């Protein structure tokens, strides 16, 4: 498992190649890459700044990945989340999950993203023509997380 919080960009192909390296039991490798959009809530976003809580953020991501691994047959997982200043179209986050079969990998990847959105301490601030604004959490993200809750 690899968890990284960093200001530098990441390379999807490099990360996937690293996960596949010297193993033959992986049948499915599902990945998600989140990008900075240039438009949010009707305004053009020129820059996005991401803040995090060093120490807690890494622990929260580890806990989310461990939770996913307890629900599905995860062979390996990678989470890379960037912090600092980002421009439109830049990569923000990568989640990749390796499993024997696609169903397990798809579900675990989606679960990790949904939990990351609502549980991991990151905060976004946008710069638009009308100034800086901190983003509010979205109900749709909380709903996406709730559908995974066990009865």
């Amino acid at each position, binding site marked *: 498992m690899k968890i990284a919080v960093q200001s530098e960009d990441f390379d999807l192909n490099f990360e996937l190649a690293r996960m596949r390296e010297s193993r033959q039991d992986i049948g499915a490798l599902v990945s998600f890459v*989140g990008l900075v959009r240039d438009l949010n809530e009707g305004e053009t976003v020129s820059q996005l700044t*991401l*803040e*995090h*809580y060093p*120490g*807690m953020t890494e*622990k*929260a991501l580890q806990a989310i990945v461990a939770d996913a691994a307890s629900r599905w047959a995860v062979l390996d997982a990678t989470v890379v*989340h960037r912090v600092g200043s980002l421009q439109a179209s830049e990569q*923000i*986050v990568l989640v990749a999950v390796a499993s024997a079969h696609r169903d397990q990998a798809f579900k675990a990847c989606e679960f990790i*993203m949904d939990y*990351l*959105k*609502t*549980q*991991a*301490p*990151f*905060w*976004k*601030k946008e710069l638009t023509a009308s100034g800086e604004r*901190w*983003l*509010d*959490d979205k109900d749709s*993200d909380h709903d996406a997380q709730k559908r995974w809750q066990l009865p």
Partner: protein
Amino acid sequence: MKIKIFYFARLKETLKFSSEDLELPDDELSLLKLKGLLAKRSEVWQKMLLGSLKVRGAINHELVDDQALIVDGDEVAFFPPVTGG
């Protein structure tokens, strides 16, 4: 007891505090009571910690609710709902 408090995002910017060390007469204190103490500092503190903003709290890197108890040496953090990803 001595504790350390961190503030993040909108709270940090508005309160103009990123962290502070605090010495309190209590042996233990609920997160809600700590918020109440800090809110007495000024109107801005009152608004940020007990106002309409949904403030989240963490103790030693774990998300907790208002009833959670803080003891000597704990690292407490206050921040708005998270918006990563």
